[in-house]
């Protein structure tokens, strides 16, 4: 499933003093199989954009009128075969194919046991009422892939788990319906370094095996540099750049001017460059170290 957005605009509270233009003519394509990153400042429109992708925010009804007039470019948003600007789209089917993990997903846990909570999405999306055995199987599978031992946690209350475990349960609760596209808003926010690494490893396990496409929204440039095939930079509701990290993080000055950070590897490359040492790496730690070590002989 491809995600194609063209000329997508969205305003919160239109025609009132609270009006906020969150998206402004966004054009973006995410290919099937990508590990796509979305970066940008708070309020740059990235969260608004991803909420469009499974129909939680819909393009306003006035769209049709505008289509006829052809005054402004036609807004389109399609995810696979779903046309999200069409009111008649089956949003339940869409949400089954596009899983969405919100920021701090552990705050959405509600059931008495982990098993029940994870099964919530599975039951909602099942075409006919699933049997207990089917539910158990799906839940166990989902819990295993997020790195939890089903025998140990399935019967516990989700509120008795640690912060990192809660987040895994919440992610399991989304992927249990096997969505084709998985979207995560700041999946590693508020976790310690080890927890962050574990979440990213988990996403790599999910990517490919469970969900063909993964889209993450993140503030952490290292995360983007290490994991993503491509990344889009949002600023003031527009897409400023959409490039593979290898090219994106070469534009150090542009990113810093937008008030964004750059990955640690890019910072070191920059510092080395000032001293006359050029390293051409793709900004992943692995590649950076390999290239630096290869250089070792040449440096005095």
């Amino acid at each position, binding site marked *: 499933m491809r995600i194609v957005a063209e000329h997508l605009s969205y305003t919160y*509270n239109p025609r009132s003093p609270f009006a906020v233009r969150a998206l402004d003519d966004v054009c973006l394509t995410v290919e099937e199989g990508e590990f796509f990153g979305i970066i940008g400042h708070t309020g740059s429109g990235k969260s608004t954009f991803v909420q469009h992708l499974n129909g939680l925010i819909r393009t306003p009804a006035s769209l049709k009128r505008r289509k006829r007039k052809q005054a402004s470019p036609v807004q389109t948003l399609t995810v696979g075969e779903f046309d999200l600007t069409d009111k008649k789209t089956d949003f339940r089917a869409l*949400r*089954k194919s596009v899983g969405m993990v*919100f920021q701090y997903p552990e*705050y*959405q846990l509600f059931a008495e046991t982990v098993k029940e909570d994870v099964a*919530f999405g599975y039951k*909602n999306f099942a075409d006919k009422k699933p049997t207990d055995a089917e539910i158990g199987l799906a839940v166990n599978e989902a819990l295993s892939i997020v790195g939890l031992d089903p025998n140990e946690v399935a019967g516990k209350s989700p509120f008795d788990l640690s912060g990192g475990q809660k987040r895994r349960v919440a992610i399991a609760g989304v992927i249990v319906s096997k969505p084709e596209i998985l979207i995560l808003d700041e999946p590693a926010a508020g976790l310690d370094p080890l927890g962050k690494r574990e979440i990213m490893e988990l996403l790599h396990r999910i990517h490919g095996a469970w969900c063909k496409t993964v889209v993450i929204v993140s503030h952490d440039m290292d995360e983007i540099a290490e994991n993503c095939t491509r990344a889009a930079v949002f600023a003031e509701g527009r897409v400023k750049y959409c490039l593979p990290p290898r090219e994106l993080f070469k534009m150090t000055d542009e990113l810093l001017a937008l008030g964004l950070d750059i990955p640690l590897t890019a910072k070191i490359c920059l510092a080395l460059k000032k001293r006359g040492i050029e390293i051409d790496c793709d900004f992943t730690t692995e590649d950076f170290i390999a290239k630096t070590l290869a250089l070792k002989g040449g440096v005095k």
Partner: protein
Amino acid sequence: MKEVAFGQYYPVDSFIHKVDPRLKLLFLIAYIVAIFLAKNFYGLAACAGVLLAIVLFSRVPLGKVLRAVRGVTFLVLFTAVINVFFYRGDTVLWGWKFLQITREGLIFSAFLVLRILLLVVCSSMLTYTTTPVALTDGIESLLTPLKWVRFPVHVLALVMSIALRFIPILSDETERIKNAQKARGADFESGGLVKKVRAVVPILIPLLLSAFRRADELGDAMDARCYMGDKHRTKYKKLRFTWRDAIVFFVGGALIAGVVVLRVYLGAPV
């Protein structure tokens, strides 16, 4: 998210917005008294005229003002229907068994409906033009006399302002949780009553947990900054009466006086 921004407050700069919240509160009370003192349509017309002036001076769009009325449509219709059919008058226009429409009944219901509408619009003008913070400040200041009998006015005001402050936060949170559960396929729209009530559980539990967590955190933060209640506290924004308040004061006074005069000299509508 961001759908319910700050209660009802409509942020523009106007004469009415600048009036001292205490005076606005007092004026509202005076206005309500005036509405109930009015015995005939002349009195209500005077009230309506004053209200119209307030709406115009406040620069709140008319559509927004009328939206406040929409919330009480049912109440208004209900009152009107009951009174039209059951008011016992002399001039019977139509009758069927125990139902009866009289000329007096029609006039009386029109009178009541007008009363309710004026009441609702005037109170919503208060919330449209006053920030919740200013409103609680005003209430605290007006209740000061109760401090003499050891009534915890400050605590009451604090509870009110915290509650008001949390409304947008919790409504944001509700929206977020609702979206998260919708993304997991939760369905809040279809099904019968039982199904709908059960569908609320996945929203309610996380929401309650988060409300308790926030309350805990706020309490800790206040303790950490040595909050001790109103002892030795000064105000950042001191309320002061100005010429605007004098005008409002006289308009309020004149309204009550006028309505009383109209009541005495022109008599009842029916």
